[in-house]
């Protein structure tokens, strides 16, 4: 059988729809994983031992189990205890939690790396511990670990393909549908690969631009 890329022309609305859902997933999950990541990082270095232990346990569980399993548990498992979530919501929660755990690890190293003098200068002006974290420590930590966070977010974008198995019709599932229709796996998977790469390129460029902008203020 010869390759025939013209089938892509007939199926591009399906792929575009898939791309749109991949975009929506990322647009929800990236901010969620960043905000939750910062909160988990701060909680993991809390002065209150109980908060610290619970956070540690949480991080440990989600870091130690596969994302695929977590998605299954959320989408197929939770209904058995009376929690029904749509595929997209399950996907956002699963991806979001999983990557907030990774982001929390990165953020924590960023936070503890800020020198003690920054805390002292801030506290000596009269800022509380929370105000110091919010205004002085976390903004600096974010700038310093931006490259590592960028890597996490790119991984997140690619791994969003996993939610296809809980029936979210994002780019990967759309591609599978097209393949099943046409029996042209090479053309469609290749095309999907190109699209993922393009999105990735765009995402990386935007994030690096943010990094560059903050270079002076580090």
């Amino acid at each position, binding site marked *: 059988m010869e390759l025939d890329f013209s089938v892509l022309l007939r199926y591009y609305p399906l792929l575009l729809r898939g791309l749109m859902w991949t975009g929506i997933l990322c647009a929800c999950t990236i901010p969620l994983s960043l905000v939750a990541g910062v909160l988990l990082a701060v909680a993991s270095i809390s002065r209150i031992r109980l908060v610290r232990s619970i956070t540690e346990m949480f991080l440990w569980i989600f870091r130690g189990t596969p994302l695929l399993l977590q998605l299954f548990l959320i989408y197929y498992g939770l209904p058995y205890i009376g929690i029904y979530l749509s595929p997209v919501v399950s996907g956002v929660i699963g991806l979001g939690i999983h990557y907030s755990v990774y982001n929390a690890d990165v953020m924590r190293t960023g936070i503890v790396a800020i020198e003690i003098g920054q805390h002292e200068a801030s506290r000596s002006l009269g800022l509380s511990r929370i105000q110091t974290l919010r205004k002085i420590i976390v903004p600096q930590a974010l*700038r310093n670990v931006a490259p590592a966070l960028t890597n996490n977010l790119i991984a997140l974008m690619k791994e969003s393909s996993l939610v296809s198995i809980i029936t979210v019709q994002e780019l990967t599932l759309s591609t599978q549908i097209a393949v099943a229709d046409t029996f042209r796996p090479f053309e469609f998977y290749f095309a999907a690969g190109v699209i993922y790469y393009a999105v990735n390129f765009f995402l990386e460029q935007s994030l690096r631009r943010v990094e560059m902008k903050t270079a002076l203020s580090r």
Partner: protein
Amino acid sequence: MVRIVNVHKRFGANEVLKGINLEVPRGKIQVIIGPSGSGKSTLLRAINNLETVDDGEIWIENVQVNLPLKGQKFEKHINKIRQDMGMVFQHFNLFPHMTVMENITMAPMLLKKIPRKHAEDRAHRLLEKVDLIDKVTFYPAQLSGGQKQRVAIARALAMEPKVMLFDEVTSALDPELVGEVNKVMKKLAEEHMTMLIVTHEMRFAAEVADHVIFMADGVIVEQGPPSTLFQAPAEERTKRFLSEVFK
């Protein structure tokens, strides 16, 4: 203004402050000198509770700094009282993610709810005073050590503190930059800012101090006006220290 009564501080078995009594009257400049390890920085940091003390009392005006409060109550108390004390550090500790302007206006806007416009006007006046009016939009990374330290002084002054604490503020500077920072401190002295200064700069101490305190091994060995302490020290320990530094 600042009153320290019988303050003790231990790090493990090592007692670094062995019963310090000290008073800084309003509008006066007191300078603490002494060999490293004498406890002078610890004492200064204890005044705004960056170090906690084991015993004794620290007062600013008629409020006790080290009140025996617990948890959030103490947090509230100390955050309030720290607004009345400006602290300048050896290593500047400017906030690198903020411009010079933001470094100065952040705390007054956040803590005293001063409108931006008002806070920026005040920052401009302070930057004029420390001779850095052309650096408003700069980030700390773009400044020299001496410039950073002058911004740090402006940042502390922006809270309109009742007393300024200087912790070896010229020790990390290149020699040729020491003068510009000392000049700013002299300017403050002329305006009768209440100041407590820990320094290794004996000439500067002699010039600006109303009162010099010599500390060694966690105690105040000797104190008095600079003319007496530098020209005619009474204690053997003081003589030994001064002959070392003026050698």
